[in-house]
């Protein structure tokens, strides 16, 4: 059970969150082709590294968050609200 320090709620167990994976850029719906669109739908990089992911605190503040997590160690080094940038 991961511990995610929600910027609104404080430290919470990961079962309060849903995981949405790495954010993807949505192609222009009026100017796309099946290959591009389906890459957006289904393909993830799945790197063994630090990744920035989107988590939704569904059973807490119901905010979408950006989480920096290392996929090998599960270490989490940064959690912030969407749209907020920083280190």
């Amino acid at each position, binding site marked *: 059970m991961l511990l995610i320090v929600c910027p*609104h*709620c404080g430290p*919470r167990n990961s*079962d309060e969150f849903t995981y949405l994976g790495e954010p993807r850029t949505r192609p222009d719906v009026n100017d796309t082709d099946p290959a591009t669109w389906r890459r957006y739908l289904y393909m993830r990089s799945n790197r063994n590294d630090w990744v920035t992911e989107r988590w939704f605190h569904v*059973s*807490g*503040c119901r*905010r979408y968050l950006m989480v920096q997590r290392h996929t090998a160690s599960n270490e989490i080094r940064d959690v912030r609200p969407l749209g907020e940038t920083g280190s």
Partner: protein
Amino acid sequence: MAELTLTDLSSTPKWRVFAGHEDVRPGTSKGSGDNLVWSVSPGEWTVLGDQPDGVVDLTHVRSMFRLTGADAAHLINRLCALDLSADMFPSGAAARSLVAGVATEIVRDDLDGAPSYLLLPSSSFKTYMLEVVRDAGAELGLV
């Protein structure tokens, strides 16, 4: 040691507002008893009591129980993973978390020095929530 008690306050008027309480940050509350406002999410507040300029009436949306007593936190932690220790969740703290698998708002509002928590699950879970709280509280002398 304060007796562990559970009171059903479900019919208390509760309103959702989207402005006017910017001093109450998410995860905190202001006031006490029937005069309470809290937030568990940015830009949203729940206010107890009738609100002439209230926006969404939550009276019927959420049930509300008050659990009071020295063992109240122990009981909640049978059902919920929230850290309720004094420095993490003092009186005046508010949260939305999972209680026995149900997303529930929890507000700590001590009464006369006794630890006391408001629990607000969605009202369709009322029967279930009463059942699991009483089941978990049986060993702790919940009345």
